């Protein structure tokens, strides 16, 4: 039977078991929206800005093992998605973005709402396609899902001219796809894995350092098994939180610019680093020369060969799917593995570093943001999905909310995109309808996608917005305080809206919390009495609170500034 290109798009989504798309209509996707209207298998969430559609699709992926989908119109619809696509790309999030395009016979003529979608998105996608023939439509969409979700995942854009969505064609959805140019490695090299096990056995001061790759490849269980067998300390990157249970005694906290004293020291002084699904980025290892001063051996497991030996020389590269490689290591260890007795002394050293209690903070008469995070953790029983924006509040959430499970910490690590928090909450709820979701944000970030309060009303997303309101672009202010002699250039936010009234104007519940003793009761009220409501909780916090420990830009990982130094 012949069906239209628009119907083919929807049938493809159904074949991929996509249960919802986030989108915004416009001229070039009208046929697709019409096809969407005539079925009810694929739900559509109408956002208020295309950027939010992509963020939501991104969080749908992050919080589940499925591929998020966004649908937008040509021209401005596409340009509005670029921040969202780049955000997903930097964190390797599988996602398919369907974009309308002007009719193919108009392309290149500066037609109304034309833009070079493939050109604009090329540097921030894993791959993109312009469909030129309706006969290629189904196979292109199949390829898009395949590419997005295999190997090192990433966003894929499929640009579809309007005339193609009107043309008629047989629908035939390929079951599998073969591409001679795209065959990601899955199995790790056994010889390398054997070498790795040997080195792990010789390690006297080992550390397991893991990143977002563990989350993306669903390897948390395998990692925990391996770490327990080895009895080595484990540190996570910002993107890796939840990949290893934060309440486990072998967990030494997040590392990097705002990592714990023990994690950064362990990383620096380790004689063997087992890096898994992490990429030694600049926010993690600090100054690379300083990091290079210590002699150590590095084992690196990653699906992406280009992540290996990119910034830090690796002794044993293992390219492969993380859970499979870990299983192989565990299997080899079962043949008689002995952790070096020296590791006991290493643990003593680590415990001494832990004794510094680098996340300790002083209470003040104001609400301390760290305190709000601790209470949020208590009140939600550590079970919530926490989305966050970008700034100090993000770091406080990462440091003080103890993630025991993967895919619960949803934030923009690579691109550091302010504004993601609220749409991320929407995406999480579409993938996990019964979840408790809190969006930890700041008064700066929340205003970057504030329009989504309207979407949340329409679909009844009961997100709890934890606005750590310091009246400042806090993270900017912190740098200015520390490195620019307190010249607070443009980091002070005046004329803030009354967030309670704003929430109410959108039909939500608003709360303003100003005293430390009100923090916990307010949170309890929000999560019980207002369980099914979106609650905008405006916490007026100590405007001077800073994030510690801190490794200043250009400094070495062990050259941390601690709260106690100030």
């Amino acid at each position, binding site marked *: 039977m012949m069906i239209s290109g628009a119907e083919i798009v929807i049938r493809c989504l159904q074949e991929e078991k996509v249960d919802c798309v986030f989108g915004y209509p416009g001229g070039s996707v009208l046929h697709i929206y019409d096809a969407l209207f005539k079925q009810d298998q694929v739900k559509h969430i109408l956002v208020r800005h295309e950027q939010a559609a992509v963020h939501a699709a991104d969080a749908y992926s992050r919080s589940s093992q499925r591929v998020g989908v966004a649908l937008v119109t040509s021209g401005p619809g596409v340009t509005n998605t670029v921040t969202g696509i780049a955000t997903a790309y930097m964190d390797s999030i599988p996602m398919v973005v369907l974009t309308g395009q002007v009719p193919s016979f108009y392309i290149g003529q500066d037609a109304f709402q034309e833009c070079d979608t*493939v*050109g604009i998105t*090329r*540097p921030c996608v*894993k*791959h993109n396609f*312009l469909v030129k023939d309706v006969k290629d439509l189904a196979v292109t969409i199949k390829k898009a899902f395949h*590419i997005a979700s295999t190997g*090192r995942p990433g966003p894929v854009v499929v640009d579809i001219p309007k005339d193609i969505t009107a043309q008629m064609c047989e629908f035939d959805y390929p079951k599998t796809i073969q*591409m*001679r*140019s*795209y065959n990601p490695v899955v199995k790790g090299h056994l010889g390398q894995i054997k070498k790795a096990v040997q080195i792990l056995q010789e390690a006297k001061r080992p550390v397991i350092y893991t990143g977002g790759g563990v989350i993306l490849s669903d390897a948390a269980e395998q990692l925990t098994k391996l770490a327990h067998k080895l009895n080595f300390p484990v540190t996570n990157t910002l993107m890796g939180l939840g990949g290893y249970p934060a309440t486990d005694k072998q967990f030494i906290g997040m590392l990097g610019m705002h990592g714990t004293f023990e994690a950064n020291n362990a990383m620096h002084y380790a004689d063997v680093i087992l890096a898994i699904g992490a990429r030694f980025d600049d926010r993690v290892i600090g100054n690379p020369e300083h990091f290079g001063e210590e002699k150590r051996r590095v084992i690196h497991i990653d699906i*992406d*060969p*280009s992540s290996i*030996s*990119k910034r830090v020389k690796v002794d044993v590269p293992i390219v492969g799917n993380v859970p499979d490689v870990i299983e192989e290591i565990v299997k080899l260890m079962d043949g008689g593995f002995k952790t070096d007795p020296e590791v006991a002394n290493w643990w003593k050293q680590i415990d001494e570093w832990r004794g510094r209690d680098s996340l300790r903070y002083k209470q003040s008469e104001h609400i301390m943001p760290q305190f709000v995070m601790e209470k949020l953790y208590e009140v939600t029983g550590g079970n919530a999905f926490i989305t966050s924006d970008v700034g100090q509040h993000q770091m406080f959430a990462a440091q003080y909310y103890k993630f025991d499970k993967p895919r619960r910490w949803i934030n923009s690590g690579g691109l550091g995109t302010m504004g993601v928090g609220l749409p991320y909450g929407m995406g999480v709820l579409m993938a996990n309808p019964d979840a408790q979701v809190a969006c930890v944000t700041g008064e700066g970030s929340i205003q970057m996608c504030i329009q989504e309060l309207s979407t949340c009303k329409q679909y009844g997303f009961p997100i709890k917005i934890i606005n750590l309101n310091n009246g400042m672009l806090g993270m900017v202010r912190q740098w200015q305080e520390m490195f620019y002699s307190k010249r607070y250039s443009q980091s002070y936010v005046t004329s803030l809206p009354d967030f309670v009234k704003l929430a109410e104007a959108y039909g939500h519940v608003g709360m303003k919390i100003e005293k430390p003793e009100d923090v916990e009761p307010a949170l309890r009220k929000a999560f019980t009495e207002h369980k099914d409501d979106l609650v905008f909780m405006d916490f007026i916090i100590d405007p001077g609170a800073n994030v510690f420990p801190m490794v200043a830009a250009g400094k070495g990982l062990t050259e941390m500034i601690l709260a106690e130094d100030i």
Partner: protein
Amino acid sequence: MRHIISILIENESGALSRVAGLFSARGYNIESLTVAPTEDPSLSRMTILTSGSDEVLEQITKQLNKLVDVVKVVDLSEAAHVERELMLIKVRATGKDREEMKRMADIFRGRIIDVTESTYVIELTGASSKLDSFIAALDAGLILETVRTGVCGIGRGDRILKV
């Protein structure tokens, strides 16, 4: 270090810009780039002349391999290979220079492929260094125009780049 990277890539529209974009986005050098379809019209072969340390070259090949349209990548200069470049050079050829130009072309085994009363177009093929020497050997004032294809190369003997 100078390196010649050979790439087999799907002959899709936009494939070239993916490669060029990668080089500019990551700050890699392109000294020359040539591309044309192979005997199999669905595949193009690209030759890029670049330079960089071993670490940079390792990243270049890894990043190229990551491009979804790229089928194969080799660093030709890692082993025995031959390389050639073609140049067309238009020179002033009047008076006594006319004979001199003809002589120079012969010495360098160039061919004169276009003749007017006052100009020659000389075609010259060879290693890039030979083309450089030819240019250096001519009186700069007599060179009207040059165009070079950039390097293309192929492995010697059994080194074969094919799908």
